């Protein structure tokens, strides 16, 4: 058959200019730099008060083909490990039960963070002007989708293989009643996707990812391993393999604005607010999960915080940027106070309100109490005595009809919720940075626990209107609220939350009702 003129021409042309059979991906990256995302005007739906420069880079020179191949290998390795070897070894049921409960919180909350980060990275793609920076953000959007799936898969895996799936299978249904959910949404949702685009990048990438993912996603795997959990290291360390590119995106965002002298007007305030916002929640919650949600301790949480947050993030990221006008966050001193005490404060309140959780908590045993006192001198006299008193009052046993929040009320220890961070606090018992202050605005009372959140609220009060569980359910009996908020297992009577990790003596709705516990709003009583 005769060749067409076009085919002949193409064949002749290829003889002269051979098509490449193998190209280094980084050469492709250089070639692709000739393409760009330039528009006549970079119109964005998400403007920023900063001026982002146009020559910033994507440090890993990712192109679509290599990105897809790299991520496919990660997933093949991770899912292959879980679905094959670890399933056969029964790994999903070999961890200490205290840690099994901790992972209900860690995997569910991280999933929400990853989900919101999809939108955050997409917003930054829209705001940035440099083509390479956009490329970095675009890869991050896809990464965050992958991470959302990974966290969901951890819950799916544990739901099938862990002996107590309640809380892994559908945690979100309890989001209205669990006091930890709202604070988590403040850092993981509002912090990432509300407000100025660059401020969101500082929250998400420069603080959330470059600082707190190291304890949350890396250090957590040490605790997991120590407590017999082989699932979490396989998944979380794989999630973190994408985070380094996100940290680089955050760094390039700073590079993109550093040339503009006007940036110095805002950057240090935004950095301090972001640092305080993220630490206010992560510091107590991670510390509580690690130390109170494990049997075998790796090291005191305050040391983990000192290494990853203070020395490495503070020194290597923020300290190095000092000559470009980036200052040490003024809230650091208060954050260090929190790193030492806030997780103990939070455990006391979380345990007092255990029926509202989607996970089980357990009191530290004698050996653990000695560990706490050795590492946090003064712990026993302040916290240990209260926990032992609760134990003596039978808080673990349903026949006691005793919920620890009743002890706090009876002894005049009111529990408030900080309007900005949504973190519960008890001013009369807290050893972390917590002093009560109350403002009235729009005929509503608002409680605050620290200077930094109070300042943020005074600047933008309309941004922080979320109601606390105490305001929402004031006057309501607690079992009624727990049933309404889906805190009950599939049998229709046993609570998801429990004050111990034993197999027997599980609290039911009836047991909780017998305690006669009623929610009260501390701002109105």
């Amino acid at each position, binding site marked *: 058959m005769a060749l067409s003129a076009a085919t002949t021409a193409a064949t002749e042309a290829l003889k002269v200019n051979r098509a490449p059979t193998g190209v280094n991906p980084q050469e492709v990256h250089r070639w692709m730099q000739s393409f760009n995302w330039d528009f006549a005007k970079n119109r964005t739906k998400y403007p920023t008060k900063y001026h982002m420069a146009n020559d910033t880079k994507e440090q890993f020179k990712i192109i679509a083909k290599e990105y897809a191949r790299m991520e496919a*290998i990660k997933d093949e390795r991770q899912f292959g490990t879980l679905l094959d070897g670890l399933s056969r070894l029964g790994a999903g049921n070999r961890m200490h039960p205290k840690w099994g409960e901790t992972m209900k919180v860690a995997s569910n909350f991280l999933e929400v963070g990853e989900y919101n980060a999809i939108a955050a990275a997409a917003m930054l793609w829209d705001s940035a002007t440099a083509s390479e920076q956009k490329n970095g953000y675009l890869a991050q959007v896809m990464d965050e989708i992958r991470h959302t799936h990974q966290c969901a898969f951890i819950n799916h895996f544990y739901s099938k293989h862990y002996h107590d799936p309640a809380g892994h299978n559908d945690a979100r249904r309890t989001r209205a009643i669990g006091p930890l959910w709202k604070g988590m949404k403040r850092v993981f949702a509002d912090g990432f996707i509300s407000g100025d685009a660059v401020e969101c990048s500082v929250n998400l990438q420069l603080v959330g990812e470059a600082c707190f993912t190291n304890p949350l996603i890396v250090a957590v795997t040490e605790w997991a391993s120590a407590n017999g959990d082989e699932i979490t290291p396989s998944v979380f360390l794989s999630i973190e393999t994408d985070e380094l590119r996100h940290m680089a995106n955050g760094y390039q965002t700073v590079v993109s604005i550093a040339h503009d002298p006007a940036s110095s007007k805002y950057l240090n305030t935004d950095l301090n607010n972001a640092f305080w916002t993220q630490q206010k929640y992560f510091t107590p919650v991670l510390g509580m999960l690690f130390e109170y949600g494990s049997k075998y301790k790796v090291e005191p949480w305050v040391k983990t915080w000192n290494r990853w947050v203070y020395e490495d993030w503070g020194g290597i990221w923020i300290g190095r940027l000092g000559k*470009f006008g980036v200052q040490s966050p003024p809230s650091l001193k208060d954050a260090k106070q929190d790193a030492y005490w806030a997780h103990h404060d939070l455990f006391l309140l979380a345990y007092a309100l255990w029926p509202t959780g989607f996970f089980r908590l357990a009191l530290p045993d004698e050996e653990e109490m000695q560990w706490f006192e050795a590492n946090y001198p003064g712990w026993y006299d302040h916290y240990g005595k209260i926990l032992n008193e609760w134990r003596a009052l039978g808080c673990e046993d349903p026949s006691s009809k005793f919920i620890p929040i009743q002890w706090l009320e009876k002894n005049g220890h009111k529990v408030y919720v900080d309007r900005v961070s949504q973190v519960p606090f008890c001013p009369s018992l807290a050893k972390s940075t917590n002093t009560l202050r109350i403002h009235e605005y729009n005929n509503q009372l608002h409680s605050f626990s620290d200077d930094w959140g109070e300042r943020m609220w005074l600047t933008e009060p309309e941004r922080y209107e979320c109601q606390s569980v105490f305001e929402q359910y004031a006057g309501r009996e607690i079992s009624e609220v727990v049933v309404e908020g889906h805190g009950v297992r599939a049998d229709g009577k046993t609570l998801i939350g429990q004050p111990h990790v034993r197999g027997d003596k599980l609290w039911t709705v009836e047991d909780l009702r017998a305690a006669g516990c009623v929610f009260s709003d501390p701002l109105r009583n």
Partner: protein
Amino acid sequence: MTKNAYNYGIMEKTGKAFADEFFAEENQVVHESNAIVLVLMQSDEIDTIVEEMILKEGKKHNPSITVEDRSGFWWIKADNKIEVDCAEASEMLGKTYSVYDFLVNVSSTIGRAYTIGDKFVITSELMGLDVKLKDI
């Protein structure tokens, strides 16, 4: 114990001694550091690269490199810079192994990390501010 060890300095202390240093006035602001931290997921290839490249040739070029086994990951801290040449790794492993294969198991970086050709670099330099980011 070297100054880049996981439990160096204040981290060696316990109880009140730790608290005294943690809350000392001079430690209420960040201190600039020229260190870098690299977290590598443990795997067949990474274990070999750590053993044969980072702890041998890498340490010859940069004696400050410290490597610690933290169960699921290698925690590596050094002053200034670490480079991993994946062409060299490929030869050693006896299979195709590009810088993107290496990135499959790079779990975290504290410092500025980038790729250049088939090399992975993590540095304390401020690329784009102090120095221009190298391109191929």
